[in-house]
């Protein structure tokens, strides 16, 4: 019983090494931003443990320091993390029968963990141990990166003005990745246009919810146009 579990852990450790580098870097950036906005170091591991979401944690720093309403926070999380619904859908079969591990497997299903585990062909009863360790190690890297960033963020030896651009840069790289992976550029343009319009009308403090409503409406209308009504 002990040895297969250990083997699963060792395999998970090797498989997650690329995520180690990525999460350490991205988590570090999050920690630095959180600290330079005046939050204490311990809030970084608290957020990394409870939310455990890459881009959403970046957005969350902004929501926290803006002191937005709980409704705005809920709707924003719903939209930013909506893609996780689809990760879950494709992992239903693989996670079936995972027992006590399942609540954690569902919780820890981030972009990177999903990309490592989706379509994994591991067979046998040890596969859920393997999934569990991959999920656990990835989150450990994330917590480590976030905490280190927050620790270092308070003692940076240079002026930090402009360091918030990390946030913008992260989303620009995601848009570039998406732009190259997908031929249909209309959705990203709709998102940007809706946000710009909402910013002009409602101002920078209240733009999020109107922008997301507008996106939902336009995307829904577009689908009706795509699918012709046939009796």
């Amino acid at each position, binding site marked *: 019983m002990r040895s297969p579990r250990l083997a699963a852990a060792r395999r998970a450790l090797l498989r997650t090494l690329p995520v180690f580098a*990525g999460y350490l870097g991205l988590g570090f*950036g999050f920690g630095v931003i959180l600290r330079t906005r*005046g*939050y204490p170091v311990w809030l970084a591991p*608290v957020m990394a443990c*409870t*939310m*455990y*979401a890459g881009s959403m944690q970046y*957005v969350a720093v*902004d*929501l*926290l320091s803006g002191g937005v309403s*709980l409704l705005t*926070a809920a709707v924003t*999380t*719903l939209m930013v*993390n*909506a*893609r*996780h*619904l689809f*990760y*879950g*859908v494709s*992992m*239903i079969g693989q*996670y079936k029968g995972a027992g006590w591990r399942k*609540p954690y497997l*569902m*919780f820890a*299903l981030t972009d990177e963990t999903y990309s490592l585990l989706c379509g994994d062909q591991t067979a046998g009863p040890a596969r859920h141990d393997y999934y569990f360790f991959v999920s656990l190690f990835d989150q450990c890297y994330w917590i480590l990166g976030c905490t280190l960033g927050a620790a270092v963020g308070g003692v940076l030896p240079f002026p*930090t*003005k*402009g*360091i918030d*651009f990390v946030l*913008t*840069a*992260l989303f*620009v*790289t995601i848009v*570039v990745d*998406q732009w*190259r992976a997908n031929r*249909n550029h209309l*959705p*990203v*343009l709709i*998102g940007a246009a*809706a*946000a710009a319009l909402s*910013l002009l009308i409602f101002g*920078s403090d209240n733009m999020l919810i109107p*922008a*997301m409503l507008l*996106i939902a409406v336009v*995307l829904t209308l*577009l*689908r009706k146009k795509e699918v012709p009504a046939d009796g």
Partner: protein
Amino acid sequence: MVNTHTFLLIAVIAAVTYLLRSLPFLVFPGGRTPAFVDYLGKVLPYAIMGMLVVYCLKDTAVLSWPYGIPELLACIVVVLLHVWRKNTLLSIGVGTACYMVLVQLVFKT
């Protein structure tokens, strides 16, 4: 800085995130999703990222000095570097460093 509202916000964001990650396992145990949900999965993530870029730039002053030039230049650096090297951490690191140099040394306000 940290108050009750901070913890409430963190709790709400964490709860909604967990809800989204676990919902499919409860609602679609057969692994089949309605067509409209499939459609949203194909378009929503892209639209939201487009929105977030604009959201990040929401406090940029475009009508007064420096007219958003540092943001524009730094974004161009991130896009070009990312198209060229496809390395997320490199693009973010260099882009942010460029922006910091621009606002601290070049376009002083």
